[in-house]
């Protein structure tokens, strides 16, 4: 097997990976960087982000507001020093993207425009129509071509990390087109492999979003943190899960039940003003909106559709002109996939899995507990999102922490000596044999699609919008069973050229490990917080016992070992998480208290 030596290896070419690569290249042009991605970088799922990216921009906004929105939005499970760093650096990153050519939507005076987003007190979401992620990704990808020190390994699939003596030394990759293995030996490794939404049945994610990097770090002893927190987005396409961005509501869209009634006012999110009011009604946070859908469904107030129960996202009152200017992709999706013209009819929507708040444990500098291993983007748990992410915070996160990861990895790579590679190469050879084992062994009887479907259904049943101990236990048992059956997989394809069945099988292995970490983390959290809501006697938030992060530790064939770590609180004590008029009242009280104690 060929060994290629580089200073920094980045696994993942989405927004976070590309931003990290550019930061590393700018930190030290003499270092060599390998940018590894299982698809061409511009196909990464960042491409699908629609709505926008948050950064304090307007004169009447400030960093404190963004901080409080994020921390309260995360139900106080955020690392507050990390949030402070994030809000302070988001704007500079958005401006940086602007300088690199991102076609941000503009005001008449030529300045960048911002829009309202759920859970954000003041409009601060930068947007490029409703294709923000697409434009950020292409801008970063094309800009990365400027830097000769970035060597891309496009369509290379990472099948393991190489770890020795408590330090990460690189990754083993498979060239998809040929099946050729390469050991990329690196002094520092950044994982930027994105989320894991595909472990659930109905989701907004692309086929590639399978939690690979999370599983790899986890298997090498790095804990996965807060994996029970999985975000359901309230407005998705029934049947496919494709997303209708929150910007639909930011621009003024309504959510209606079967009676044409704006039902969110019944869930503490009112009053129902006719035009968008920040942090109220349709601009409440996602967890609350998805929960309200669930209750409406229980009450029989939702609408029957061919793919189950739906409510209506009504954009008609925005008018054709605004819809085509601000939400062109939404119009295209509704028209082509559903045959609905949003200017003339409401769009049927339902919640679907969207985002994994948890991920690879990382400190504020993106370093994991394993020396030489960093992570950034959706795969990483740097501590920004807590128990519920606010929409438009993650695109900004990719840039802010992608950059940190790039410069930290560069610094680390400079500080360590290169390892002579004999023992590492032996390990890499073992990795290869193990990966090949999947296609060379015979006699398997389990069909991959069946295992995948059973996993995704079980995760939806046990780890949905509302959870109970009984249902979660059933999912724990199911995932344990599926991990067992996985060993008996049957693969039709035995070739080395573009063998996607083989790679899907490796991905399924990653998914099962990640799914297991999620459900075991969930069943052990005996409270309700953010996106983790229980119905079995743990309906309240319990700060005494659970104001702490869950850590899931890999435990081989057995279930993960779960323990906890504290949450860093700097300036916001846990308070009541309220929205709409109640939220405004709570905030006023908080201010009064702070003023009194100053």
């Amino acid at each position, binding site marked *: 097997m060929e060994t290629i030596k580089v200073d920094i290896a980045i696994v993942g070419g989405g927004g976070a990976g590309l931003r990290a690569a550019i930061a590393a290249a700018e930190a030290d042009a003499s270092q060599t960087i390998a940018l590894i991605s299982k698809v061409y970088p*511009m196909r990464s799922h960042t491409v699908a982000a629609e709505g926008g990216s948050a950064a304090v921009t307007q004169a009447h906004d400030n960093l404190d507001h963004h901080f409080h929105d994020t921390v309260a939005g995360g139900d106080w499970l955020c690392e507050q020093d990390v949030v402070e760093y994030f809000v302070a650096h988001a704007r500079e990153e958005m401006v940086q993207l602007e300088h690199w050519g991102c076609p941000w939507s503009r005001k008449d005076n030529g300045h960048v425009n911002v829009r309202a987003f759920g859970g954000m007190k003041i409009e601060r979401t930068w947007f490029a129509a409703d294709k923000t992620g697409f434009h950020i990704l292409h801008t970063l990808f094309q800009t990365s*071509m400027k830097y000769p020190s970035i060597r891309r390994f496009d369509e290379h699939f990472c099948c393991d990390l190489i770890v020795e003596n408590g330090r990460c030394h690189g990754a083993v990759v498979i060239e998809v087109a040929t099946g050729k293995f390469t050991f990329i030996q690196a002094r520092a490794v950044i994982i930027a492999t994105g989320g894991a939404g595909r472990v659930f049945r109905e989701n907004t994610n692309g086929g590639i979003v399978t939690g690979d990097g999370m599983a790899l770090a986890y298997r090498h002893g790095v804990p996965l943190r807060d994996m029970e927190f999985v975000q359901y987005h309230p407005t998705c396409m029934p049947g496919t899960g494709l997303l209708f961005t929150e910007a639909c509501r930011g621009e003024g869209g309504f959510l209606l039940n079967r009676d044409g009634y704006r039902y969110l006012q019944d869930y503490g999110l009112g009053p129902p003003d006719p035009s968008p009011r920040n942090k109220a009604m349709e601009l409440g946070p996602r967890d609350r909106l998805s929960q309200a859908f669930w209750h409406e469904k229980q009450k029989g107030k939702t609408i029957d559709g061919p793919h189950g129960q739906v409510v209506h996202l009504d954009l008609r009152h925005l008018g054709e002109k605004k819809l085509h200017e601000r939400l062109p992709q939404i119009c295209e999706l509704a028209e082509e996939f559903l045959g609905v013209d949003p200017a003339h009819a409401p769009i049927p929507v339902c919640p679907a899995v969207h985002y994994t708040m948890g991920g690879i444990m990382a400190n504020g500098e993106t370093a994991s507990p394993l020396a030489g291993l960093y992570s950034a983007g959706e795969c990483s748990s740097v501590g920004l999102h807590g128990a519920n992410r606010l929409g438009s915070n993650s695109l900004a996160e990719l840039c802010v922490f992608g950059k940190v990861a790039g410069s930290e990895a560069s610094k680390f790579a400079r500080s360590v000596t290169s390892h002579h590679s004999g023992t590492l190469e032996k390990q890499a050879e073992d990795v290869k044999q193990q990966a090949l084992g999947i296609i060379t062994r015979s006699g398997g009887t389990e069909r991959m699609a069946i295992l995948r479907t059973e996993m995704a259904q079980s995760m939806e049943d046990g780890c949905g919008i509302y959870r109970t101990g009984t249902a979660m236990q059933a999912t724990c048992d199911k995932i344990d069973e599926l991990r067992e059956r996985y060993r008996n997989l049957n693969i039709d394809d035995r070739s080395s050229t573009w063998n996607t069945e083989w790679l899907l099988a490796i991905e399924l292995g990653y998914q099962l490990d990640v799914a297991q970490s999620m459900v075991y983390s969930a069943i052990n959290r005996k409270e309700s917080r953010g996106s983790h809501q229980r119905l079995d006697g743990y309906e309240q938030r319990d700060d005494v016992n659970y104001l702490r992060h869950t850590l899931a530790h890999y435990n081989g064939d057995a279930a993960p070992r779960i323990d906890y770590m504290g949450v860093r609180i700097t300036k916001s004590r846990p308070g009541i998480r309220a929205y709409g008029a109640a939220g405004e009242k709570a905030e006023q009280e908080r201010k009064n208290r702070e003023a009194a104690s100053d």
Partner: protein
Amino acid sequence: MTDIEKTIEIEVMRYHPEQDASPVFKTYRIPYASDQSVLQGLQYIKDYIDGTLSFRWSCRMAICGSCGVMINNQPKLSCKTFLRDYYPGKIRVEALQHLPIERDLVIDATDFINKLESIKPYIVPREARSLEQGEYLQTPEQLARYEQFSSCINCMLCYAACPQYGLKPEFTGPGVLALLHRYNADSRDGARADRMQIVNAEEGVWGCTLVGYCSEVCPKQVDPAAAVNRNKVNSTLDYFLRFLMPGGGESG
């Protein structure tokens, strides 16, 4: 008959370089539903009939640009082409025309990527600006001059549509020329002269014979033909200006 009992036939091009001398076709019968895409049809085949079928896909929502194939002889994104548009007829799916095939429906995209890299697809600032100075000002009108061309998802459908590219693969081709124009037309950029040298070469815009089929098949209304045309006009202008102005045609 309800949708549940209906089926549809998909004929898929299969090619495996390790065992086939040339592509062959295989027909599969799959369940029909009016809201199913051709991509979902291919996924059904892979999941339940033949795991060895290879094709690219990811987003399922016509934005990642992975899933371009020929469907009944037309270049299309399989994720936003629906079975209902062909039912009860047969669907024939092939790899994108004009591009080398790696296996089954997977084409080799290297040429496109190399061409993209060759045109400096990034802003070379017309004037320097620090981050502290904030964003460059750009009015909605200035944005509108290039926005459409920045919407290219690199799906390469236009390459499969372009007769010139089929004959002469050196031709830069519609998608990359649209992206070149995207940067040239951006008020923040100052590298137009450099890029026009690429365009002025024989393989640049001059390869185009104005068929216009590229714009017809583009799933994102990028209208690459318009970009090629504008570059032709600019290219001619540059050619003359070069003799008149020191530094060559910085017009525009």
